[in-house]
């Protein structure tokens, strides 16, 4: 993995100026989680539109490395206006930051992938919780911890 490629302007920009940062209050769904390897933590809050299934607004809060923060920021832009069920089905390789790295020919290593997927993970927890559906096995445990 080339560092120049990883710490490209786009990612640094999302890290330094995260989009949709903060907390929505009230929110229709929320969840938090952490990457136990580094203590990175994210809280997601979101609101649905009148149809109860289109994501109308979303906010991420928390702290962590450039990759986890930028990935969450980029993801938040991606999901606004989309249906919950559709978003809940987004695959690991399809989040904007991960996809971008794969495309550039230097995919993230497994450890950094965990950073990059923290945002998608907590978002999935939030959506499954609000839909009352069980979390798929590969995300197990991501929501077990209280947010500080």
């Amino acid at each position, binding site marked *: 993995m080339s560092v120049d490629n990883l710490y490209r302007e786009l990612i640094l920009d999302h890290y330094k100026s995260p989009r949709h940062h903060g907390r929505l209050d009230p929110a229709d769904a929320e969840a938090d989680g*952490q990457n*136990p*390897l580094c203590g990175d933590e994210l809280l997601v809050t979101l609101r649905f539109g009148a149809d109860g299934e289109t994501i109308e607004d979303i906010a991420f809060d928390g702290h962590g490395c450039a990759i986890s923060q930028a990935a969450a920021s980029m993801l938040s832009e991606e999901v606004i206006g989309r249906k919950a069920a559709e978003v809940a089905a987004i695959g690991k390789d399809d989040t904007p930051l991960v996809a971008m790295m794969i495309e550039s020919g230097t995919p993230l290593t*497994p*450890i950094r992938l965990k950073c990059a997927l923290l945002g998608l993970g907590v978002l999935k927890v939030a959506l499954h919780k609000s839909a009352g559906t069980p979390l798929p*096995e590969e995300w*197990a*445990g991501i929501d*077990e*911890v209280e947010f500080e």
Partner: protein
Amino acid sequence: MKQTAKLDARLIRADFPIFEQLEEGKPLSFLDSAVSSQKPRQVLEALEDFYEHSYSNVGRGVYALAERADAAYEQAREKARAFVNAGSPREIVFTRNTTEGLNLVAYAWGLENLGPGDIVLASELEHHSNFVPWQEVARRTGAEFKVVPVTSEGELELGELELFASGGRLRIVAITAVSNSLGTIVPVEKLIAFAHEQGAIAVIDAAQAAPHRKVDVQALGCDFLAFSGHKMCGPSGVGVLYGRSELLEQMSPFLTGGGMIRRVSVEKTTWAELPHKFEAGTPPVAEAVALGAAIDYLEGIGLEAIAAHEHELTAYALGRLGELPGLTLYGPPLERRAGIISFNLEGIHPHDVAQILDAEGVCVRAGHHCNQPLMHKLGVAATSRASFYLYSLPEEVDRLVTGIKRAQKVFA
């Protein structure tokens, strides 16, 4: 496709550096693989290569070296998963050995789930490692410890199984798949079915099974299954515990410390996901990687071919030993026996037999084989035991016979 052709033990033997040396001028006839197997070059090279090019601790490092170590370790887990056909690598915990795997279940499941009135069932056939932990956890929790008796040929008295039915109080059935003393192949499916009918969990000791024949935890339907790397061409210091994820998830951790936590504070600590919840501290990293290489090695040859080879040798050995006067053979008939033969010579203690055999370069085990309850049942303090593996040769059986004759002459 698995290779089912007959294996060529002579060719395989060339993979094992230890057979290149002579023992007191004699070729090494290692008939003690049941206690621990020798290691092929392929495994030793994997070990060395890992230490020389990819060594680092796992699970925590960002740098490339750590990522390599991590990938190698998790790949070994995946190999172990496929080896026993577990549904997910989350169900594969690396331990030190079979014994630790069984203790893990006894402590982490047993201590929390057993109480007075409950019953823990093992058998007279069990190795101490699948006997004492259950006896101990029963003692600590006030549960009752019972054992399924064996016949004089060392087979479980399955007809008596119903005696242990007890309206939901039976909580654990712990059974070996193959007896390490007698080679008995136990019909574990029946015991697992019985356990589940009774609402108990089924714990399988596969220490003598996994190295020699295909073990499929999903086909078996067992709840836990443990085996050791060192008996299957892998290094010492690493074993595997399979556990059904539903159970592993409900359980509290066993050992606690680095690597198995989610968050630690003075007030409260929470646990990491499976399987890490059960792997506290720095794991046997290089050992697990080398165990992965051992699995590749065994699968390259084919478990069916290994079992068939051992069966053939066992048939030959039972025939040759059966001809000797003053020799008592223990255990079940050939059809229900793995490559393990226990015997005694009239008037000669097994220790003396083993000593005289050693002078011929023949290594056999002498003692109770960690099977005192079984020895008690057989009415002996000890036996001599020969056991085979993929590198065993018929001429080793011949040397065994020659050595036995010599022992009989010395003690005539």
